[in-house]
C-alpha cells in the first residue's frame, strides 16, 4: 500500500515535471537552446495569476487565459530583447545569456515579491477524489489531464503543421532553414511565446500544488533530469521522463530517507541526470547529433 501511495504521488509530481519539461523541449526543438530561465517564467506566471485573482478579483477561469496571454507576451518580449541579438552566436553564449536572464529575473522576483509564502486561491474542491483505495487531489488530476492533452497537441503540431516543421528545421540548422525560406525571426519569437505559455500553465498548476513563493523557480532545475532522460527534443520523452523522475524521486524519498537521512528526494533527480548523461547522453528518445568538421 505504501508503494502504491508513493507511486501515485510520484505520478502526480511527475506530470507537473512533464509540463515543465515540455517548455524546455519546445524551446530546444525550435531554437536549439536550453532555456535556463524557464523556472523564472513559471514563477512570474504564477505571480501574475495570483495578483489577477486576489488583487483584481478576476475569476479563476478568466485569470488563467489572461495569465497565459501575459506570459506568452513576456516570452516574445524576452526573445526580442535578449535572444534575438544572439542569433547565429555559439551555443555557449546563448546558454550563458539564458542563465544571466534566469538569475536576473529570479532576484528581481525576490526584490519585488519578497521571500515569504503566498497562499494561492485554490479553485478546486479541497476534498480529494477517491478511486478505490487511491486518493488523488483535483489539482494533480488536472495537471495530468493538461500535460497529456498538451502532449498530443504538440506532437501533431510538430509532425504536420507548417510552422512546427519550420521550427524543427530552424533547430537543425539555422543557415539552411533561412535559405529554405523560413522566417527564423518569426520562428524564434513564436517558439519563445509558446514555451512561455506552457510555462504559464505549469506555473498555475505548481502554485496550486506547492506554496507560491520566489523559490518556485528552482522547480524547473529539478525538471532538467526529466528533459535529459526523455531526450531533449522529444515531446513524448518529456512526459515519460517527467513521470519517471517524479516516481523515482518519491520512491527514493520514501525508502532511502530513513536509511541515509533527509534530503534524498531533492538530490535523486540530479544523480539520475548525471547517470543518464554518462550512459545515454541523448536520452531515451533524443536523436544523436552527428558532427562533421
Amino acid at each position, binding site marked *: 500500500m505504501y508503494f502504491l501511495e508513493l507511486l501515485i504521488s510520484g505520478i502526480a509530481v511527475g506530470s507537473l515535471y512533464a509540463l515543465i519539461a515540455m517548455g524546455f523541449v519546445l524551446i530546444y526543438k525550435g531554437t536549439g537552446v536550453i532555456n535556463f530561465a524557464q523556472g523564472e517564467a513559471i514563477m512570474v506566471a504564477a505571480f501574475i495569476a495570483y495578483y489577477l485573482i486576489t488583487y483584481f478579483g478576476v475569476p479563476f477561469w478568466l485569470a488563467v487565459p489572461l495569465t497565459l496571454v501575459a506570459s506568452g507576451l513576456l516570452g516574445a518580449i524576452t526573445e526580442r530583447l535578449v535572444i534575438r541579438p544572439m542569433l547565429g552566436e555559439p551555443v555557449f553564449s546563448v546558454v550563458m545569456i539564458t542563465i544571466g536572464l534566469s538569475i536576473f529575473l529570479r532576484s528581481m522576483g525576490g526584490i519585488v515579491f519578497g521571500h515569504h509564502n503566498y497562499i494561492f486561491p485554490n479553485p478546486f474542491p479541497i476534498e480529494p477524489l477517491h478511486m478505490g483505495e487511491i486518493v488523488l487531489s483535483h489539482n494533480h488530476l488536472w495537471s495530468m489531464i493538461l500535460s497529456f492533452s498538451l502532449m498530443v497537441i504538440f506532437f501533431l503540431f510538430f509532425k504536420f503543421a507548417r510552422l512546427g516543421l519550420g521550427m524543427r528545421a530552424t533547430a537543425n540548422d539555422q543557415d539552411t532553414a533561412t535559405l529554405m525560406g523560413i522566417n527564423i525571426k518569426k520562428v524564434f519569437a513564436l517558439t519563445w511565446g509558446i514555451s512561455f505559455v506552457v510555462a504559464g500553465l505549469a506555473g498555475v498548476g505548481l502554485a496550486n500544488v506547492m506554496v507560491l513563493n520566489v523559490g518556485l523557480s528552482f522547480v524547473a532545475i529539478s525538471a532538467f533530469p526529466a528533459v535529459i532522460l526523455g531526450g531533449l527534443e522529444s515531446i513524448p520523452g518529456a512526459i515519460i521522463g517527467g513521470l519517471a523522475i517524479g516516481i523515482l524521486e518519491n520512491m527514493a524519498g520514501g525508502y532511502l530517507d530513513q536509511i541515509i*537521512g533527509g534530503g534524498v528526494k531533492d538530490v535523486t533527480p540530479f544523480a539520475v541526470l548525471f547517470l543518464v548523461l554518462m550512459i545515454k547522453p541523448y536520452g531515451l528518445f533524443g536523436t544523436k547529433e552527428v558532427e562533421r568538421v
Partner: protein
Amino acid sequence: MPIRSKTYCESYHEDIKLLNTIWSKCWMGLFIVGMLVLPYATDTYIVYLVNLSCIAIVAALGLNILTGFTGQISLGHAAFLAIGAYAAALLANMGMPFWITLPAAGLVSATAGILVGIPCLRLKGLYLAMATMSFGVMVEYVLITWDGLTGGARGMYAPEVSVFGRALDTDESMYYFLISVSAVMIIIAKNILRTRVGRAFIAVRDRDIAAEVMGVNLTGYKVMAFALSSFYAGVAGGMYAYVMGHIHPEHFTLMSSVEYMAMIIIGGLGSILGSIFGAIFIVVVPEFIKLFSQAVESVIPFMQGRYDDEWNIAVFGLLIMLFLIFEPGGLNAIWQRIKTGFKNWPFTY
C-alpha cells in the same frame, strides 16, 4: 595582439615572451611596487577587497582554463572550490602548514576533476553544462549530509595561516600571502597556456574534430583541462578557507558557480588578463551597488533599507546579458582597444 612598432622578434621564443619590450617590463615593475606598498597607502577595507579578489582571481583562472580556453562549459566550479576548501581545512586542522595544505587541496580537487572529467568526455555544450551542474548539486548534498567529515550544515572552522611561525591574523598580513599565491598561480597559468598544452586547449575549443585530426590527443587534453581547472579551484578553495576562517556548504552553491561564470564572461573568455579583470570586477561591483543604493536611499525614501544581496545578483545577471550582447570579448577586449589606441596614436590603426 598588436606589438609596439620597432619591436623585432627574431625567433619564436622571443615572440611568445611574456614581457617582450622594455616598457612592458617597466610597467610590470611599477605595478609590483604598487602592489607591495598598497597596504601602507590605503585602509584595511581596500586591503580586504584585494584579498577577496586574489581568491576570485585564482578561481576564475581555473574556470577560464576549462571554459574559456578549452571550451568545456562547467557549471560546477564551486563544487571543486568546496572540495579544495574542505580538504585544506581538514588538513590544516591536523596541523599541516600552508605549503602542504594548499597544494594538497589543489591535488584532491584535481583528482575529483579527473574523476568527473573522464565520464564527461563524451559530452559537449549544454549536455556538459548539465552534467557539471548536477555534479555541483550532488557535492553540495554530500557536504551537508556527511556530518562526520564536513560538520554538515554547521560548517567547519579553519585555523589561521602561519608563515615562518608567525600567524597571519590581520588582513594586511594575509595580503602579502594571498597576492604571492595568486601571482604564482597567474605565472603558472601564463606559462602553461603559451606552450604546446595551451595551444592544444585552444585547438580543442575552436574545432575539436579538426584538432584530433591534427594530432591533438582529445581525451588527454580534455582530462588535463579538467584537472588543471579543478587544481586551481582547489587552491582557491584553500585560500578561501584560510581567509574566511569558517566554511559552510552554502558558500559553494550553483549560484556561486554562476558567479564564477559571470567573472570570466565579463572579464573575457580565453584570456588570463580577462579572468583577473573579471574577478576584481565581480568582487568590487557589489561595493559600488551598496554605495549607490545608500546614495539613492537619501533621495527616494521608498528605497530605505531595501538593499540586500539580491541586488548584486540582479546586477550580475544584467551584466552577463549586456556583455554577451554588446561586448563578447569582455573587459579584456575593452582594455586591449584602449591600449591599442594609445600605442598607435595618432593613427587609428
